């Protein structure tokens, strides 16, 4: 499975001159937990809901503060045509849960650890379907006919 096939949501972007409040509202409206900070279309950082809590709320940074005051600098991405296992490797190597997906030089989506877990659980359900019948509706093997 390719990374592009695992994308569920469009990337949400704001310029670094946007505010902490703008990011919180965008996360709320789009139902996402991370916003890519991009200047003139080129990503320069990323801010997550956790960043808003720990770097803004906990430090009493006002909602009208610039987003670049709380973002993580630099954005590690993955090519859309890479195998999904490469994304798993990145998640196991770096301490983040969200990974922007790039086609050429354009960010086309975001994949998350949560997405991978949902896919994995779905796959497990398919794999165990045959076992489920045996577990829930177990029955004895039919006995061979007894010769007369």
């Amino acid at each position, binding site marked *: 499975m390719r990374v592009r096939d695992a994308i569920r949501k469009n990337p949400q972007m704001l310029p670094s001159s946007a505010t902490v409040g703008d990011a919180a509202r965008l996360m709320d409206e789009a139902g996402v937990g991370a916003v890519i900070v991009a200047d003139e279309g*080129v*990503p*320069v*950082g990323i801010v997550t809901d956790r960043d808003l809590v720990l770097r803004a709320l906990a430090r009493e940074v006002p909602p009208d503060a610039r987003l*670049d005051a709380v973002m*993580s*600098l*630099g*954005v*590690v*991405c*993955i*090519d859309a045509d890479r195998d999904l296992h490469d994304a798993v490797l*990145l998640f196991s*190597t770096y301490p983040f849960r969200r990974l922007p997906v*790039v086609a*050429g*030089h354009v960010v086309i989506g975001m994949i998350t650890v949560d997405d991978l877990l949902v896919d994995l659980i779905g796959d497990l359900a398919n794999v165990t379907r045959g076992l489920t019948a045996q577990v829930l509706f177990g029955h004895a093997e039919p006995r061979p006919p007894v010769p007369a």
Partner: protein
Amino acid sequence: MRARAGDRLMIKGHHVGEAERHGVVVEARGADGAPPWVVRWEDSDHEVLFFPGPDAIVEHPQPATS
């Protein structure tokens, strides 16, 4: 910010005790050397596709002179 294959990339630490991170640009995917760049980090030898932040410094290796 522009780079080409072979350029060195340095990311400064942001907190006390946080080490600088060094890497080499393997490939520039954007037009005329613009990001994203494929970067190989020196500490892990791991390659990633990377959009640098404003804290990144690109060092262009000097051509050898005789």
